[in-house]
């Protein structure tokens, strides 16, 4: 059986597709909207904005988050900004340029029509967020301020200090709160989705666990919207929040939703290096720092002199050297790989040689310390808290870390997965960033999906579905609930000796070594041999204490790690089958003589969408060809 992966791209010229699609989409009258119930899982930028907007339109929305409040979703940690093709700087920006930069940044592995729509609605996002009271940075004259980000030669990034994600999320949270108060959205916090319920092949509900009482409960609806974020924590150490996990999307995959391009992961170039074995997470230093910081390492191998004693002539500003036109603002995948290269050559700095300098000395000389403090004060403060070092006086040490995942559940132009009734938004889907996401585009995509896309496209599914909502008495709910209970009992009955955390750590290290910044057939084959053994040990020897009927953080973790232990294998398999390098997916066998990623457009200009076949059978790799009507495939050059 092969999947139906029709992307449902509207006909007509690229610039008119979205307008045309909006007009051709089915409408539901206000009186009928009330009759439809929508489940929204996750309340980050995509989930909160979707829940708020659908509630505002009159749908009956029930929203869930596993944190103690929707305001805590990890979108809150995004620092640098949000892109929009406003061209307020009069520097030659346009919808088409943002579209092209995003396609090119994604190494020509994203779907044209989706990306163009994203660029189109980007301008409305800024307007709407301003209306909600998001305190974007302003110039003295009162106009909105912009900064530059990697992969672009225009200034199109809007920001709120170093806390843009926080302010945008709190804006969406406030819109959500307005709907909760109005009674159109019912919000459930500390409740985790553990499975998706299919009735006659349609997504019609979910099964959840109340993380305080342990109650397992079914929820029925006319459709399910998942905005549950990315899977970066498969690497254990990442810039994701500790709670971020793959469970919702992976369990939907096991129920039949196709998982697209799981090997596309983004390693962010500017994070604080690992300090010790006990480290539980990595902290990002916003990419915006590269506007004013210069990246360098010593020219000489094993140079252990303090930075201040290395004269300029003995420093290698390698990004400026290799990519003169983009310099320190080269895209993330390229910057990360360059950092790995110089560290592999033995020129890395700091403990263990796994770090490069990000130096502000020149900018401080040029602009003065107060200006730098105003721009990045909170980041310098955070760096100081974590490392004990003062970056005004010595360069920061940074190293790449897992940050974002471009892969996700497959969706069509309506953001609906191959399972009818299951919509997937934000980082949880795969569609807009190709093989590499540009900085300040995640916030843009999350809000585009939630505020401006799903409210239009959801009607196409719902309109003919009137009156088909099952109740939770349907046998499909009973069966799914029983499956969820059985799995929880299985965790609690292992009664092994080894902590769940230690399994997660081992998996993470394995993924980082074999499926990280560089991959090869050899490393991936090794990982594919080792993961099943680790998984088996987990099921024989994991220590999950306590019971289900209480707040049990070990049990929560066990469920998530069990899914990562299966998902990691899928990622490696996808990486192994993609015999090319593109964006964040770098296969050592496929590189140009200069060490740049070498794509194979003839064989791999497609989306790989994996279809689950059960525990014992390998998944099937389905393909959605990427058809480029407007853009000419080219080798990415940032030189």
């Amino acid at each position, binding site marked *: 059986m092969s999947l139906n992966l029709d992307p449902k791209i509207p006909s007509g010229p690229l610039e008119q597709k979205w307008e045309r699609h909006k007009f051709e989409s089915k409408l539901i009258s206000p009186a009928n909207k009330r009759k439809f119930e929508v489940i929204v899982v996750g309340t980050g930028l995509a989930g909160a904005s979707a829940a708020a907007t659908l509630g505002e339109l009159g749908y009956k929305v029930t929203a869930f988050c596993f944190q103690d409040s929707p305001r805590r979703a990890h979108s809150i940690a995004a620092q640098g900004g949000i892109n929009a093709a406003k061209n307020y700087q009069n520097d030659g920006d346009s919808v088409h340029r943002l579209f092209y930069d995003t396609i090119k940044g994604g190494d020509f592995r994203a779907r044209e029509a989706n990306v163009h729509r994203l660029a189109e609605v980007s301008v*409305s996002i800024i307007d709407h967020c301003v209306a909600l009271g998001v305190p974007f940075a302003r110039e003295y004259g009162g106009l909105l301020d912009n900064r530059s980000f990697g992969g672009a030669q225009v200034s199109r990034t809007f920001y709120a200090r170093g806390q843009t994600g926080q302010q945008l999320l709190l804006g969406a949270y*406030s*819109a959500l709160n307005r709907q909760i108060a109005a009674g159109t959205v019912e919000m459930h916090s500390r409740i985790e989705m553990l499975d998706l319920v299919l009735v006659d092949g349609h997504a019609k509900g979910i099964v959840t666990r109340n993380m305080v009482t342990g109650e397992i409960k079914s929820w029925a609806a006319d459709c399910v919207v998942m905005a549950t974020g990315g899977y970066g924590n498969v690497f254990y150490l990442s810039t994701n929040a500790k709670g971020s996990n793959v469970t919702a999307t992976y369990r939907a995959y096991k129920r039949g939703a196709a998982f697209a391009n799981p090997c596309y992961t983004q390693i962010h170039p500017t994070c604080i290096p690992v300090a010790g074995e006990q480290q539980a997470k990595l902290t990002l230093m916003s990419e915006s720092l590269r506007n004013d910081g210069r990246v360098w390492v010593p020219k000489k191998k094993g140079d252990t002199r303090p930075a201040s004693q290395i004269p300029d002539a003995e420093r290698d500003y390698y990004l400026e050297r290799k990519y003169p036109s983009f310099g320190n603002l080269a895209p993330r995948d390229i910057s990360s790989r360059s950092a790995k290269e110089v560290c592999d050559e033995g020129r890395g700095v700091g403990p263990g040689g796994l770090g490069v300098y990000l130096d502000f000395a020149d900018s401080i000389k040029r602009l003065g310390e107060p200006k730098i403090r105003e721009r990045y004060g909170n980041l310098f403060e955070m760096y100081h*808290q974590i490392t*004990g070092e003062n970056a005004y006086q010595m360069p920061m040490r940074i190293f790449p870390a897992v940050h974002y995942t471009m892969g996700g559940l497959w969706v069509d132009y309506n953001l609906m997965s191959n399972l009818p009734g299951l919509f997937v938004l934000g980082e949880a889907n795969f569609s807009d960033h190709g093989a590499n996401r540009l900085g300040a585009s995640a916030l843009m995509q999350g809000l585009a999906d939630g505020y401006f896309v799903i409210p239009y496209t959801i009607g196409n599914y719902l309109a003919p579905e009137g009156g088909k909502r099952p109740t939770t008495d349907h046998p499909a709910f009973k069966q799914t609930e029983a499956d969820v209970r059985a799995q929880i009992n299985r965790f609690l009955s292992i009664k092994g000796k080894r902590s769940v955390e230690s399994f997660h750590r081992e998996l993470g290290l394995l993924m980082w070594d074999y499926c990280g910044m560089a991959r090869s057939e050899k490393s991936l084959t090794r990982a594919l041999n080792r993961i099943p053994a680790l998984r088996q040990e987990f099921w024989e020897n994991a220590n999950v204490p306590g019971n289900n009927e209480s707040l049990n953080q070990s049990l929560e973790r066990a469920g998530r790690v069990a899914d990562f232990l299966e998902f990691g294998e899928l990622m490696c398999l996808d990486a192994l089958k993609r015999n090319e390098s593109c964006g964040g997916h770098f296969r050592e066998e496929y590189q140009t003589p200069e060490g740049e990623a070498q794509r194979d457009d003839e064989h791999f200009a497609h989306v790989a969408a994996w279809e689950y076949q059960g525990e014992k059978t390998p998944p099937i790799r389905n393909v959605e060809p990427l058809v480029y009507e407007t853009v000419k495939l080219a080798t990415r050059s940032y030189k």
Partner: protein
Amino acid sequence: MNLHLKVWRQKNAETKGHLVDYEARNIPEDCSFLEMLDLVNEDLLSRGDEPIAFDHDCREGICGMCSLTINGIPHGPSETTTCQLYMRKFKDGATIYIEPFRASAFPPLRDLTVNRSAFDRIQQAGGFISARVGAAQDGNSILIPKTEADRAMEAAACIGCGACAAACPNASAMLFVGAKVTHLGSLPQGQPERERRVLAMVKKMDEEGFGNCSNYLECEAVCPAEIPVAVIGQMNRDYSVALLKDNL
């Protein structure tokens, strides 16, 4: 380094809690306070005990989930949040008391976790601008001088952790409410609902069981987002004006 911990353990809201002694051994100085607790939990697990439950998520000081009272101070000696506190701030051999955020409006859940949904309900009462999706004018058509935008941003930086209420002898949430009232009240977009907002939020704050401000200023001292106590003055001013107009 080695540390003596006195940690609040409580099975659930119905049972009484108490402090339990633990020894944390061989803790690296470069590890964060929460990583230290991770290590203690690994140790508890290996001995067949149930680990200590505590809230945390982003571990970079922005989500507001972590909420420990350390040696009697919410977020302890950290300048920001609990998760940004590093062990180098402590002396080898020190005794550390670890308790949850305490306020009558934050009922306990388990060990060091509490329920702070009262904060969400206050925001639902009025912490928003009623802007319909699709109805907004161009972002630059509303000119906001930099000083006003900066003032709004300063108040908007609140992370909703609840340290202010936990630190206040009256368990007052006025810094939290004042921050939102000041953020939205400083912007032109927030003017139409300014009075309704402050009346509704203050009413909800009282209903949830938070006390009033009597100028201890403990809230400002512990606030990880450096929200200035001036927001309380702004809230009181807005509240008085709104109340007066409401009664006319």
